[in-house]
């Protein structure tokens, strides 16, 4: 556990090029715009400000909520959670009018990231979940 500094969770969002791409992490001055705690949606408390909940104008936060909760369900397979994550982003992207290229790019980027960098997050969530009955 650690204390949170504002610098750490500063908003990575802005005008110009990023604005054109509609990139938003959902945080502002160290707090989430939706009022939830940092780490809800896409990213963890440390990475929330750097991992977009909106990419290319597509809000993928629900897919992130589901992915987090799947990791934190005792016995849930990582591969299933990651594959569901991919399909959910594809589905949300399609429902929000995303084109084939955009949807493939977003789901591909996020899938590869969780598949290859999510192992320790998965282990930690499973350990906690199975210990506490989360």
């Amino acid at each position: 556990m650690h204390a949170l500094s504002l610098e750490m969770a500063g908003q990575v969002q802005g005008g110009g090029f990023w604005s054109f791409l509609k990139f938003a992490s959902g945080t502002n001055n160290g707090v989430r715009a939706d009022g939830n705690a940092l780490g809800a949606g896409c990213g963890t408390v440390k990475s929330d400000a750097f991992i977009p909940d909106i990419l290319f104008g597509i809000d993928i936060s629900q897919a992130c909520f589901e992915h987090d909760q799947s990791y934190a369900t005792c016995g849930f397979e990582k591969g299933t959670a990651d594959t569901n994550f991919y399909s959910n982003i594809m589905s949300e992207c399609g429902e929000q009018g995303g084109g084939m290229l955009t949807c493939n790019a977003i789901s591909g980027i996020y899938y590869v990231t969780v598949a290859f960098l999510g192992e320790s997050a998965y282990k930690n969530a499973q350990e906690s979940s199975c210990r506490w009955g989360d």
Partner: protein
Amino acid sequence: MKQLIKNISLTALLFCLLTQVIPPAMAASFFVDKGHTDVVEGVAFEIVSPHLFIKKAFKLRGENLTPSQLLLIREAMPAIAGMTQQILLRPLHSYVQAPQNSALLEVPQPRNIYQLQDIESPVQIFIQTIKNWQVTESSIQFSSDYFYRPERGHTVNFRDTYLFTKANGSWRFMKHPNSMPDGVLQCAQTSAGWMRCDLAGQQ
């Protein structure tokens, strides 16, 4: 799955770049959530296990809560998170059967959303946010927004409202303030790109 394999090749380049930029130690530190202390209006909330992901869904900002009300929510947070976890879990056969213990029958139980919405296995419900707080010294009322993805059709967003009361120094679920859940929410995308869901007419 075919599409997935195709996309892996498309994103491999980006991934290589990513792994070069983010060393494993930093990645672990960045992507592992071990909890944190969230300070709202001077009140410190321990967003930690158990039920870490549920505690992160507590909407405590933009709700016009005073520090004393926040202190009461902090006190009730473990009980609210525990009840939410009970709701999220798909009921097993033992849950569907009538409880044998008469003492258990007297304990108020929250509504079963799986039964209410006729959600078939293996579909799961997920929590998105816990909000609309109404807090007094002895009671806390709030709404929980859930979502699930039926095998066919679009994602369903659903809201129910709960009332907790404090008795003998501990908080527990007392009842639903309304005889029926708030029900299915309607979602729309804001100009900033966010999907926001609310009851019809309240968006």
